């Protein structure tokens, strides 16, 4: 586990990254959210506001532990230690990207840190169970964590995977990131129970719900779940309430939100909250904070510059990598 200041720094890095992506995404777009223009191709799902979930859980993971993430993946990828330059180049669709421009922002793969994500809701649960099975067989003490939104908890894959993982006592942690809305549909209209953690009982595994978007509380609960998995006691389900500071995707008019809903979320910014905690407990000074902000800005700008300067792939490269050569 990282120190509190280190977790804070990762949260700031994620926030700065997402805020910069939001700016860059609109560059050269006319109309403003034209999906086919600008330096970043395709859709963009940003995770500002959701930093505590990624950082509070992944702080307990080793590089050889696996993470599967959903379509909104940047915070998880950054927390897992995916190379920021290659990740950014991938998001820009460049030849130096993680997948040489074949994957993009919803399909980031970095086997060196056992990170993958998918654009299909709920698709990451089964592969996480399988990765956990592989770790169990190796006896490496490795664990897998499947992150997904609260909308994904109504997918068959969620229920099938919880049952299978419980049967296999697989070292896997299911983390539901409840940001209140599945695109536009509020949780109360999609989910028959208030807390998805209640569903853990159906599969005979522990389930914990956490409100407050508080990285320390998340870290504490995750530590217990991950330790449990490493010790061979099987899976845990965590549901973590969080807030999405941007729309479902960049260009989402968010007409489904209440009048002050977004403003209230922003008022309870988990990074400000954590910073104030660290200041009050003398773990961080204002000077430290300024240095962190400057440092993460440098890291992000370096990654963006790397991506911008990287060449586009060659058209003929579209035809490679369908099959692995032995």
């Amino acid at each position, binding site marked *: 586990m990282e120190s509190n200041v280190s977790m804070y720094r990762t949260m700031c890095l994620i926030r700065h990254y997402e805020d910069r992506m939001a700016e860059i995404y609109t560059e050269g777009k006319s109309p403003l959210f034209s999906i086919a223009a600008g330096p970043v191709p395709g859709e963009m799902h940003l995770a500002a506001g959701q930093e505590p979930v990624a950082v509070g859980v992944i702080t307990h993971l080793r590089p050889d532990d*696996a993470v*599967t993430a959903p379509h909104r993946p940047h915070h998880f990828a950054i927390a897992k230690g995916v190379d920021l330059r290659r990740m950014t180049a991938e998001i820009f669709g460049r030849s130096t*990207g*993680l*997948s*040489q*421009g*074949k*994957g993009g922002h919803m*399909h980031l*793969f*970095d*086997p060196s840190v*056992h990170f*993958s994500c*998918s654009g*299909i809701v709920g*698709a990451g*649960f*089964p*592969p*996480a*169970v*399988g*990765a*956990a*099975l*592989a*770790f169990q*067989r*190796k006896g490496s003490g490795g664990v*897998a964590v499947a992150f997904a939104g609260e909308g994904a908890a109504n997918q*068959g*894959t969620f229920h*099938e*995977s919880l*049952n*299978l993982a419980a*049967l296999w006592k697989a070292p896997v942690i299911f983390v539901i990131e409840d940001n209140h809305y599945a695109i536009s549909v509020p949780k109360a209209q999609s989910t028959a129970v208030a807390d998805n953690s209640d569903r853990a009982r159906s599969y005979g595994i522990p389930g914990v719900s956490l409100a407050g978007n508080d990285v320390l509380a998340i870290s504490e609960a995750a530590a217990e779940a991950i330790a449990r998995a490493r010790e061979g006691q099987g899976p845990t389900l965590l549901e973590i309430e969080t807030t999405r500071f941007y729309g479902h995707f960049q260009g989402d008019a968010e007409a489904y939100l209440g009048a002050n809903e977004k403003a209230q979320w922003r008022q309870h910014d988990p990074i400000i909250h954590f910073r104030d905690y660290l200041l009050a407990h003398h773990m961080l000074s204002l000077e430290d904070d300024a240095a962190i902000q400057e440092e993460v800005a440098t890291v992000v700008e370096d990654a963006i510059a790397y991506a911008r300067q990287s060449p586009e792939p060659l058209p003929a490269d579209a035809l*490679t*990598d*369908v*099959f*692995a050569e*032995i």
Partner: protein
Amino acid sequence: MSTITARKLTMARAISEAIGQEMARDPRVLVWGEDVGVYGGIFGATQGLYQQFGGDRIMDTPISESAFIGAAIGASAEGLRPVVELMFVDFFGVAMDQIYNHLAKNHYMSGGSVRHPMVLMTAIGGGYSDAAQHSQTLYSLFAHVPGLKVVVPSNAYDAKGLMISAIRDDNPVMYFFHKGLLGLGWMPSDDWAEVHVPEESYEIPFGQAHVVANGTDLSIITIGAMVPKAMKARDLLQRDGIAVEVIDLRTLVPLDKTTLLDTVKKTHRALIVDEDYRSFGMSGEIAAILAEEALDYLEAPVRRLALPDIPIPYSRVLEHAAIPSVEAIAHAAHAMME
């Protein structure tokens, strides 16, 4: 004189022997699926393996196809080499997202950095009145999606060698065995598929069609259970002085275009026989390749004999009318010679 003693195996035995030999050779190989354990697989493809390797490596799963096929995706990315069975190809609808959006695409979407060395095996085919939800062939559906290799053995010898190649391949392989070739006691099976199978391990490379029988007048291009039917039709046609060449494709992906083109250059007539649905599938694909690359060699239009575009009916009479029969193949070939 050959001194080899024939060791005839059913296709089901040949498949389970191949898996067992690979499991003995490579501890990363394990099997999971529905009823693959004590039962030995509903179609016998894992018979004896539970007794040999135990429940740790031959794992019965719940009826949760998305979860256990998806688990193989994660497990294969982390170093295991799973062989996963899902009983009937007709059942794949419930797990297609894991297959066509993830298993097939992850290698490409990762720029080649992620590999999924796994085999997904299933039973195909009709002929025993199991009707529309248990008799389909559907291999074309999987061949259509880039990133999956597609294997369809027609006999026990090929079944073993192709399975060993499938397990050793670093790509996802869809392995389709036809129920009517397996040699099961409770299901009609074509004796043609029960052939000599060497005990030692051997590979049959993908993308190499087999010229099962030579001929000069017409080529029947086919795969799976239609291969023995084509051979029987060949016997009938021979009596009428028509010399038929029979090509067993063995794998749809990769497809052996060279053998296809060579046979047509030799016989100048091609009849494609397919148990899958007629439209937008294997038979159309082969016909398109011949039209694109061998049109000048053809002395008659390419003909296709496949399942008409109907769900597979239940009644014996109706099903027999729907699935290409020996007589229908012979009739179609005859018509092409007139």
